[in-house]
């Protein structure tokens, strides 16, 4: 087996272990409660007998490790149980919403990632200049205000003052092209503000590190033209840290999605989860959490692998 493949498989294994440990944490937080799901379901006027019967039926009288294995088995086989509120299978509820959330995330990523890379590169190249300071100050402002403020201001400006867009989005309008544009503009705009600010700062830091290195100074003295200097000399060494930055920024994308789907009534998984939390619908919340964590860890893993592939020292056997 090539060392590269071994390295990648090793990372994959570590990611799976992380996910397993995360599942233990999620299970412990949501399962070790004073009041359990049976009590929640029956309410205040449950008799001890019906409570005990339901507990047995739901498997709540079994020891904790056994319950965990049962729960994990259900998750892995795609059968995490039924919603406590609507009694529909959790997988069906999530399956209906997941494409909407993925679409929102994808549209945001397609716009935000190139924009952030471009702005971050410009800021790094002209570091210390007015553009760098402008971008940096703008980013600091954007990351120190909550996402809902950006979303609120977007509504205030685009819907209320200018009247260009509806304040709420409904995915049923996606059928026509103009409808889709109207539905997506404000959620995507808000998410982009948050994600671009984070990603741009990290891109700038990673590239600026390289541009300050002695070998760039050497290349400059040799007369390498500026564009080539940035793209051919510095960029390959910055790809790893930048991929990492992009992956870490998806954590902010996730946080942003939770807020944005709620404020714009966008029918995605995050909105489903927030509703689940306010109704204390544990099977739904647990499953949504695990899906989000798995997605996040997958992106971090991809970034890790890109970093490995981009690093020539790791590409060749010693």
């Amino acid at each position, binding site marked *: 087996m090539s060392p590269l493949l071994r390295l990648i498989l090793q990372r994959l294994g570590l990611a799976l272990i992380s996910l397993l440990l995360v599942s233990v944490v999620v299970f412990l937080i949501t399962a070790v409660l004073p009041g359990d799901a049976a009590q929640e379901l029956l309410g205040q006027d449950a008799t001890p007998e019906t409570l005990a019967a339901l507990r047995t039926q739901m498997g709540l009288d079994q020891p904790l490790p056994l319950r965990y294995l049962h729960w994990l088995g259900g998750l892995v086989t795609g059968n995490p149980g039924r919603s406590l509120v609507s009694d529909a299978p959790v997988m069906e509820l999530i399956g209906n919403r997941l494409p909407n959330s993925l679409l929102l995330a994808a549209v945001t990523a397609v716009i935000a990632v190139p924009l952030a890379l471009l702005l971050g590169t410009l800021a790094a190249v002209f570091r210390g200049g007015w553009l760098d300071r402008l971008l940096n100050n703008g980013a600091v402002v954007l990351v*120190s205000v*909550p996402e809902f403020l950006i979303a*609120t201001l977007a509504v205030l400006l685009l819907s209320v003052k200018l009247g260009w867009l509806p304040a709420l989005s409904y995915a049923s309008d996606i059928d026509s092209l103009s409808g889709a544009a109207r539905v997506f503009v404000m959620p995507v705009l808000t998410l982009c503000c948050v994600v671009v600010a984070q990603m741009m700062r990290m891109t700038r830091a990673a590239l600026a590190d390289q541009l300050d290195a002695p070998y760039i100074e050497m290349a400059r003295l040799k007369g390498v033209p500026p564009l080539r200097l940035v793209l051919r000399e510095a960029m390959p060494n910055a790809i790893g840290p930048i991929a990492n930055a992009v992956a870490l920024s998806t954590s902010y994308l996730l*946080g942003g999605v939770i807020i944005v789907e709620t404020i714009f009534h966008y029918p995605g998984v995050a909105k489903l989860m927030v509703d689940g939390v*306010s109704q204390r619908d544990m099977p739904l919340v647990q499953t949504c959490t695990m899906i989000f964590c798995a997605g996040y860890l997958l992106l971090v893993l991809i970034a890790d692998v890109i970093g490995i592939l981009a690093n020539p020292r790791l590409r060749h056997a010693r």
Partner: protein
Amino acid sequence: MNASVPARSASAASARRRSGVFGLGVPGTLGLLVILAWLLVALAAPSWISAGAQDIGGLPVFAPAQIGHWLGADYLGRDMLARVLLGARYTVVVALVAAVGASAVGTGFALLAAVSGGWLDTVLSRGMDTLISIPSKLFALIMVAAFGTSVPLLVTTAAVIYVPGAYRIARALAVNVAALDYVVVARTRGESRWYLMLHEVLPNIAAPMLVDLGLRFVYVVLLLASLSFLGLGVQPPAADWGTLVRENLGALWEGGLAVVAPALAIATLTMAVNLVVDALPGRDARKAVR
């Protein structure tokens, strides 16, 4: 004992270079003043604002700004200025307690891990790595789903979420310090683990950890405001600034002052902390280990 002559002259030099209180420079001093002002409001507002300011229907719904009611009225006709000032204690104090808690616990575990090494370090670091791989808002949502939204629980939730981040920074700093000669000497001298943690390592990571505390405070403010905005944070009739934004969203169509005012309050607080953090001397040391 440790404050040797070179250290003192270095701080004197930086004080000469930079103006403002504690050598924070002008932006840093400004930030500090804003933070102190909000802290004062948070502590004093409850005893200082008359109960009448909270009367429902005292003013027309979403009344515009006017003399005596400088920020207009909220969705129930209550004076918005009083609501914002009273909300300060839920945002500022709750976030401060949570951030200090997270920082203290994280630093404590980190000192223990760095000084002990071995399996304890491995177990602690592995556990913290697991917690850190759950995105913070998601973590907050499952904690709220499981344990509810009373104020003490929100403080605990926010503290637990940011312990791993503080631990990671503090451990990276502490491991470097624990490997230095004078710590090795103290260890050889037979000093206790407790003494090594508190007297040898802690003083040398305190400055960057203060910076980290500031950043963590900002994270907690934003997280709690977001939770409240989702309706999963501080519950009415109590209201932090996030709740105020949520309950007055209808004002967007009537000029928006009742929405913008609490949102701006959050922004002034977080930006002020950022300004102070940028001016603190431990900033570069924290950045170096990130």
